[in-house]
């Protein structure tokens, strides 16, 4: 438990430093939010008035302290441009992105874990070469390019899956409780909505996951190869244990930790990369929200997005640590 407490304090500290860095960076990046807020032909007087209303005339340290003070009370502030509490904006934008990342992660795990294990088992065979070729291609394709090609071929030419959006047009008025349409579909017993949302997720999620899957696959393969060379595998084989039993019962649990650590980090990276597929597939989400905020110099909104992505990143890593702890009881003694 002491270990987890330590991790928690460390995470809080990381978040604080992240906030500080983002806040400072957003000040260094040129751009004046007051000019944008004042609109065309505003005149210097009005810009100055807005600058002081927005608190931008205060010294940077004071601005930062005010911001952190509000943050400590759970107040992310108001967006200068949507005039809404940023928290509300994020509650609307985060679920579509998280849904996308979760499905992409499922695709990632379903492909890279079994393929990694098998290609390690059949190391240096033709099958292994094929898998490595796939990983190499996957790692080399830029996300936006994959997304465009899949959209044009599978969505546009073949019309097998939708081109864009989160739901089909007839569901445009659909409102759920959570903002996660897959979950909302299930909660409300609307399987039609569930499957429609899933159909809209396949191409974007696959485009987003390909690069990460390639990396996950290589890491899993490498970790498993070294496990297959260990003495306990030799012992199990001499005791005539079946090959599936060796693979799944012995090698997999022992070789999984390095991959799990990477998958945990990939979750956060994916969330940061959603904008690439969100723009192409016309999906709402935190990536598009962030881009808009950056182009308008909506500093508080930008910092809030970075903070939320940071929290998700840390949470994903905490979950992975917890999983490793459960998988490997020896960890308790190490710590």
């Amino acid at each position, binding site marked *: 438990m002491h270990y987890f407490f330590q991790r928690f304090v460390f995470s809080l500290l990381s978040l604080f430093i992240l906030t500080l860095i983002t806040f400072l960076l957003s000040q260094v990046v040129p751009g004046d939010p007051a000019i944008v807020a004042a609109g065309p032909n505003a005149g210097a007087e009005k810009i100055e008035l807005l600058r002081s209303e927005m608190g931008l005339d205060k010294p940077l340290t004071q601005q930062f302290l005010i911001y952190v003070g509000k943050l400590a009370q759970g107040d992310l502030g108001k967006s200068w441009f949507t005039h809404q509490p940023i928290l509300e904006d994020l509650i609307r934008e985060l679920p579509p992105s998280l849904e996308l990342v979760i499905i992409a992660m499922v695709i990632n795990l379903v492909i890279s874990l079994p393929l990694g294990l098998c290609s390690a088992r059949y190391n240096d065979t033709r099958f292994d070469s094929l898998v490595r070729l796939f990983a190499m291609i996957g790692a080399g394709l830029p996300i936006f390019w994959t997304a465009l090609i899949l959209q*044009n071929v599978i969505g546009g030419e073949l019309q097998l899956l939708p081109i864009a959006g989160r739901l089909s047009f007839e569901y445009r008025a659909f409102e759920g409780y959570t903002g996660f349409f897959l979950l909302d579909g299930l909660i409300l017993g609307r399987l039609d909505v569930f499957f429609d949302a899933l159909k809209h997720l396949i191409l974007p999620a696959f485009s987003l996951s390909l690069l990460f899957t390639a990396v996950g696959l290589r890491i899993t393969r490498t970790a498993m190869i070294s496990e297959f060379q260990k003495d306990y595998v030799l012992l199990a084989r001499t005791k005539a244990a079946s090959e599936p039993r060796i693979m799944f019962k012995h090698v997999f649990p022992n070789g999984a930790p390095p991959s799990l650590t990477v998958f945990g980090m990939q979750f956060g990276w994916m969330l940061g990369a959603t904008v690439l597929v969100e723009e192409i597939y016309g999906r709402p989400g935190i990536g598009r929200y962030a881009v808009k905020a950056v182009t308008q110099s909506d500093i508080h909104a930008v910092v809030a997005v970075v903070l939320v992505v940071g929290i998700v990143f840390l949470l994903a890593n905490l979950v992975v640590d917890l999983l490793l702890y459960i998988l490997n009881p020896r960890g308790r003694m190490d710590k």
Partner: protein
Amino acid sequence: MKICNLLASAFTVLSFSLAIPFTATADVAGTLIIAENETPENLDPANATNSTVNQLLVGVYDALVQFKAGETSVSPQLATDWQVSDDGLQYTFKIRSDVKFHDGSSMTSADVVFTLDRLQAASAAVLNDMGPFKSAEAIDDYTVKMTLEAPFGPFISALSRIYIVSKAQVEPHMSDDNGRGWLAVNAAGSGPYSVSTYKPTEVVTLNAFEGYWGGWDGDHVAEVVFRYIAEPSTQLALLKSGEVHIAPDITVQDKLSLMDADGFRVDIGAAATPLYFQFNTSSDGLVGDASFRKMLAQTFDRKLHLDYVLQGFGTMPDGPLPPDWMGHSTSTELPFNMAAAKELVDQNGWAGSTLKVRYLPAIEEEQAAVEQLQSNLSQLGIKLEAEGMTWPAQAATVQDLDTTSDINMIYNFPSFPDPHAILNTSFNSQNTGYNGGYNWAQYSNSEVDALLNQAASSADQSERATLYAKAQQMIGAEYPVITVSLPGSVVAMSSAVKGYRYSVAHHQTFNYMDISVD
């Protein structure tokens, strides 16, 4: 094809459910779906200067007067008629007595006064173009008097962007932000459509308002849907699959190819949005010298830009005003002439100098224009450094003369079709970048200012035309800008769309209230 079937059945259900309440003479049915690449910030009429906000509001709210799509002069909307005092300082409006807001309340002059008071209290961007507007007061229930600090010729035109809100609806939500938070996500208008869904990064849905005071003669759609699709190729795919009817942001090449394709139409609106290279006329460096600017002014091939970058969609400019506008003076800017420029460079020994241009690389035609200028200048031995920026960053650099680069690219989007909105914005010294305006050439000439101010305060159109013509000639003689292009507003749409007309007073919007879909 399955999608089309689903859409068709959705239309049928919708048109059935929504068409019933309307009168038998009108046909209000079907759905119009518009793709848009940029998401709206909010729904607040205070922000109607922003086209992504304005395109939603233009049919949700009414103004006292309005430019109908395709027209360049105002028509009465909520006002029936108006009188201007002899000194030009007081405008008295008679307003309609039969107008109902979407909440059912009736419009009176109290709503008009409340609207303007709120905009003033909120330092609304939309008031920037209202000139010396001072205050509004209700004379009786249907008479409003507006007072100006100085006469302002285009005042009536400027009112077309002042959308009247329902006092009864907004007042309870004023809180400490002048109702900005509430109006950002709610609407309180009297227009033909009301907002039914507002998901600003995904979809905005408008529904025809049954009790619209203007009635529903002719063909209209029952529902308008804006879908936010950033990627041009996605907009094209959706247009082709029938999932959107209007796709304004596809590439020029794709627009060109759709011109001859069955089932599609490409509309070219005579937009009046000049794109400039503005030279820092107040610079201590070379661009501060008018003879150097005379050389620069001849180094850009507008025809090449129009033919290849804009694929012919646009008007060839010879000065900042569109050629067919009141007051346009011909050939106030020098034509492309590299030989003449070369001669000036040789005479003055300017070869070897370095200039900097700032621009928005996200705008394709700006990027292309910068590349052309770079290449032409390098032939003269002048190096042009290009610095791409975001809008807020570029706007911040011109706040100060010291940080203003030699050349800036900027679009001028006039908020109403009047020479004032282009010439005063781009060349009056009151509007220099360091004064918080869009005259990024930091151009200051007291005689030009006097002409522009006199034209702005006059109500006599022929006098104004003469003054503007004179101002353009004086400006042209000092070479503060190259007007790169007057791009057309090119919008691709399904041929099922009927009634679309480009609106010069509401650039980058769609007259969805006049459109029907077959």
